[in-house]
């Protein structure tokens, strides 16, 4: 499976090893980390809900699209589900290709598509004790809207 969901900590070294190939001169890795703030609120932890049957199927499509579109050799993505603490890795994308340009582009494509197409949701748990779902349109309208509590 080029796209997988994990409820345990992501093993970065193992993930990179999957895409290592002697014909590839470039290996690009994106790691999405849980950060401690979002929109002025102190985040304590993050909770990811994933609907696996569709996420895995659609995630696999995204990877195949990236390989086809950018001509890279190998690509994978692992996304966490469940409760994550600050500093944990929520998602990893690894891409290898003969040259770096397409590896960077494919990596970007995969994470961008993963963020907008897959049935994955995150709930931020704040130090204040409140928790709320992220990226809800109505939440945004009410002034609570934000993206993240995580990387980028």
């Amino acid at each position, binding site marked *: 499976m080029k796209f997988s969901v994990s409820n345990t900590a992501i093993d970065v070294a193992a993930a990179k090893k999957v895409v290592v190939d002697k014909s590839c001169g470039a290996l690009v890795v994106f790691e999405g980390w849980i950060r401690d703030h979002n929109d002025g609120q102190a985040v304590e932890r993050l909770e990811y809900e994933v609907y696996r049957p*569709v996420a895995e199927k*659609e995630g696999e499509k995204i990877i195949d699209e990236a390989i086809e579109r950018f001509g890279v050799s190998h690509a994978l993505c692992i996304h966490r589900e469940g409760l994550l603490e600050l500093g944990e890795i929520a998602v990893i994308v690894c891409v290898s290709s003969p040259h770096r340009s397409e590896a960077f582009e494919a990596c970007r494509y995969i994470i961008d598509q993963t963020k907008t197409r897959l049935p994955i949701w995150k709930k931020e748990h704040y130090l204040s004790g409140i928790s709320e*779902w992220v990226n809800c349109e109505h939440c945004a309208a009410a002034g609570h809207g934000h993206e993240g509590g995580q990387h980028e």
Partner: protein
Amino acid sequence: MKNTARYFALFRDQAGCESEVVEWSGGTAAEFFQLMAEKHASLTTEAAALVAINDEMAGWETPLLEGDEVLFFPPVAGG
């Protein structure tokens, strides 16, 4: 006809249940959601919401068939 509505994340909180089987006159996925929103006052229409039918991503204008399981996804936030 009968269809099953399944809710996730925020929609599950708003609907107050994970899923329900509904007997209705039939129509598109969008119309089915509209019916559910009328039934559950807290269920809000989100422009960025997505829908899947029988575990396949689908368009909101897809006409439903008898027995289809319709998955209502609130705006996603992966990564």
